């Protein structure tokens, strides 16, 4: 789609000022004015539902549908938790939105709260995002000063408080119930479901959790309507009645062994190859790609031959990946050892597993130890079978864990064994040792 005009990145690409006056001058807060003036909360939910917007945080759950899960006529308070923990490796689109166009996000937050009748929004922001934290806080201060937050916003019946909450650097606090526990001041141990957050979330009250990018989309959907949104992206597969489609644009992050790592906004459904060649400036050093991580490391691995897979909500699954994830593509070139890739992935999950479920706690640690041994030249053939068995048996899909971290930890391992087995076997057989030094932070 050569003529696609970025929406979420429009002001950012134009290097527009992130502050309130400039945002308003560019037509900002007209969606909120419209919603508060002309629409009921139910109508806002309907627009979002009809747009087919799916969550951008990784799971791809239809956003408007999620909002309808809140109990009807609840006396309140209802909370919105904005997931700005963005800790999936290689993912940085939330950071760009918060640093450079915070009001676009905040308008979406206000709209979501109006629709869901939430009276408080907590933005859970990862600790490492200092600049994003400061800019978001400054933007929030501007809103309070201009009656766009606080009591009776724009003179209407709608009141909203927004708080920023800084995380402490744990991946698991991006999982929605880990986030809620952490927000409540507890250890970030995901909760068992049911009850789901919509029924009993933060402080035991009904809660909606949405990603920053999802909420930024809401701003434009309310402004321009559901039909407009549906002109972008990929409609549902008519052969699959459960497919909710992949409408709208997506912020794709491109990193790794490419010449120009970047974040681009494109309609859902672009291929990895197009991302690398057109937007990432091609693989670096004139080399070829060996494969990629298609949507954050939780989603598994793709080989170079699979690069023509469209990155929409269905594409990655067709080549055995877990899903679209955060649509953060990381390329590794032909010289990269898959053993090093896998070790680094396993190390990440062993480090980030919250540790409450036995299969995840022990499984991630075990896989990391095996990979560590393998890269030091002590691998055994049977290690691949053990890795595969462990990887397949941990997670909410087999039913052995509380949250999806374990599925994400297993997926790249199982993909690597299925897709790169010859290389792994050769490495083991040859007693190869790695040349890459990685800190041994087990």
């Amino acid at each position, binding site marked *: 789609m050569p003529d696609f005009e970025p929406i979420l990145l429009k002001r950012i690409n134009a290097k527009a000022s992130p502050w309130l006056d400039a945002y308003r001058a560019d037509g900002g807060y007209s969606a909120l004015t419209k919603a508060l003036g002309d629409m009921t909360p139910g109508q806002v939910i309907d627009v979002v539902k009809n747009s087919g917007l799916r969550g951008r945080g990784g799971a791809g759950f239809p956003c408007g549908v999620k909002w309808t899960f809140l109990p009807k006529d609840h006396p309140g308070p209802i909370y919105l938790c904005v997931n700005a923990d963005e800790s999936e490796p290689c993912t940085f689109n939330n950071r760009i939105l918060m640093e450079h166009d915070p009001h676009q996000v905040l308008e979406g937050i206000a709209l979501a709260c109006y629709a869901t009748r939430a009276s408080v929004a907590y933005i859970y922001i990862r600790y490492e995002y200092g600049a994003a934290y400061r800019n978001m806080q400054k933007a929030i201060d501007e809103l309070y000063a201009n009656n766009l937050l606080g009591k009776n916003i724009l003179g209407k019946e709608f009141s909203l408080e927004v708080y920023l909450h800084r995380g402490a650097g744990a991946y698991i606090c991006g999982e929605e119930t880990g986030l809620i526990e952490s927000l409540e001041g507890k250890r970030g141990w995901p909760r068992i479901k049911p009850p789901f957050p919509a029924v009993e979330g933060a402080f035991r009250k009904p809660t909606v959790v949405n990603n920053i990018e999802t909420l930024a989309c809401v701003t434009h959907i309310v402004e321009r309507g559901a039909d407009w949104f549906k002109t972008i992206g990929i409609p549902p597969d008519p052969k699959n009645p459960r497919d909710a489609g992949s409408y709208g644009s997506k912020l794709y992050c491109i990193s790794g062994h490419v010449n120009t790592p970047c974040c681009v906004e494109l309609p859902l459904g672009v291929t990895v190859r197009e991302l690398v060649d057109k937007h990432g400036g091609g693989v670096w050093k004139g080399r070829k790609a060996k494969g990629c991580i298609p949507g954050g490391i939780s989603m598994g691995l793709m080989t170079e031959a699979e690069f023509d897979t469209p990155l929409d909500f269905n594409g990655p699954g067709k080549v055995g990946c877990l899903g679209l994830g955060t649509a953060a593509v990381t390329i590794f070139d032909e010289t990269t050892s898959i053993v090093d890739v896998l070790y680094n992935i396993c190390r990440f999950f062993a480090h980030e597993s*919250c540790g409450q479920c036995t299969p995840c706690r*022990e499984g991630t640690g075990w896989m990391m130890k095996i990979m560590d041994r393998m890269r030091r030249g002590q691998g055994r053939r049977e290690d691949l079978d053990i890795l595969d068995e462990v990887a397949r048996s941990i997670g909410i899909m087999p039913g052995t864990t509380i949250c999806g971290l374990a599925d994400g930890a297993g997926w790249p391992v199982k993909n690597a064994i299925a897709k790169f087995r010859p290389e792994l076997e050769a490495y083991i057989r040859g007693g190869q040792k790695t040349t890459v030094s990685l800190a041994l932070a087990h």
Partner: protein
Amino acid sequence: MAVVIINDTPVDIGTERLNLIQAAAKIGVFIPSYCWHPALSVVASCRMCLVEVGEKKPDGAIAMQPRVVPACQTPAKDGTVCITNSEKARTAEARTLEGLLLNHPLDCPVCDKAGECLLQDFSYQFGKSSSRMIDPKNTPPNKPDIGEHISLFTDRCIMCSRCVRFTREIAGSSELHVVNRGHHSEIDVFPGDPVNNPLAGNVVDLCPVGALANKEFLYKQRVWFLKNASSVCAGCSTGCSITIDHNKDVVHRIRPRENPQAQGHFICDEGRFDYPYVNSKDRFQQPMSAVATGGSPVAVQAGRLHHDTWENVIPTVRRELTNAAKQGGSEVAAVLSPMLTVEEAFLLAKFIKGLSADAKLYLGWVPTVGKDEQFPQDRKGNPMGPVKFTIRAEKCPNRRGVEEVLRHFQVELLGFDRLLANAGKLEALYLTAGYPPRLGAWLTDEQTKTLAKIPLLIVQDLAPSPISEAAKFVIPAATFAEKDGCYVNHANLAQQLHWAVRPGSMGRSDGQVFLYLLERRGLIQASALRQEIAREIPFFAALAGDLGEFGVKLG
């Protein structure tokens, strides 16, 4: 009415709200579990209880879920299908166990828990004894001083979080935490804040493995040498059900015994750790008298008291009391300690009133310390939420039982203060005590002096004290661990004690002594005595039946 189908067998669970572990237990199907505990919140994190779950539709078709599910988290509803013995469920269990053993030291030979360890048991039943991991195990440091009475063998922990939830949900003081993440997660406390709350010892029982250890018990006994007696804690009027673990007449450990009618699942540390006095060598080992009562005294102790024999002392005491009663019944009295069992109090009352109807019976000293303590309580001692455990201020087990015996034998209930007021007029006093030494001296010097003036003073107690020094006869008393009988707690719940150990070499239990004094034959038979009491005293009518595991309500 709800019918759950467990491994093809329909189980009618009525209207009970159960999870699948509990529903399966109804028909004897055991689902292994670690993190789940009926008194704690459900976290479903250990994944030991994985089963296959489905639903039986009204048309009879069964739809199974594709994934395994934790039984502890799954409510048993009408039509719920639960399969525990399929290949899939068994594999999931075995995998969880393999995971748990990866970093476990398997140092069972030196582990206190061996023999009663759920990791041993489940590995044997549901898993393997070895793991496929050839890599080095994690070796987190042990924390021997995580609590005054508690030691943490960090590497044995399986991270079930029961201990953490206990300190938060039952004790309320929240000393225990999980620190670090993933396979490096460890149980810990904040520096300078050990797990010393008044209920702390329960975390040791809750720990399914040998991670949390009771320092008082550590390395004392292999558990398979222990014998167990079910009994009742004598620490306060809550009357917690306990198990006394003992071997060769030594009490080694006290553990809570679940009793929904008494205290629930737990006991307090005061009750748990206050048993060394039972084993103490400082206790009276045999009777003593101030004068030689027959042949020659067996040994001479410091002071005026001579060691004496039961054969001499019992008839002498009986004779002297009988004579005193003949002189004037109202000048004879007995003090019935609230440490006595109902049976003992009944026998002593019978004996004294048998000497003379005018003889007086007094309730012994009722120790009270502070106020009732309710849990959970926050760090400042304020109660939080519904009460889950109470340590009572009344530090004796059987005031209610003894009172009711007294009321039967004598219309007016006379307290210990009345005895002190009337002591000057007494010719003879049979004083029972038996208070655990932790309560300290219970008579002031003044009170001791008053009682010491009574010419025929018989003291039945555990260990020497100023009042026993002043006695004419000293009779060794027995502790709760040495008695058969029953106590009546603050809520009129009568519960049974079974003797665990025998009182010191020549010792007789208090009840046995009273039988001798009454010239009744044979050894004490608590249940036969209860029949007699039930017939004589309406309040105790329910004692005629079996007291069972949990006791019966009286009154």
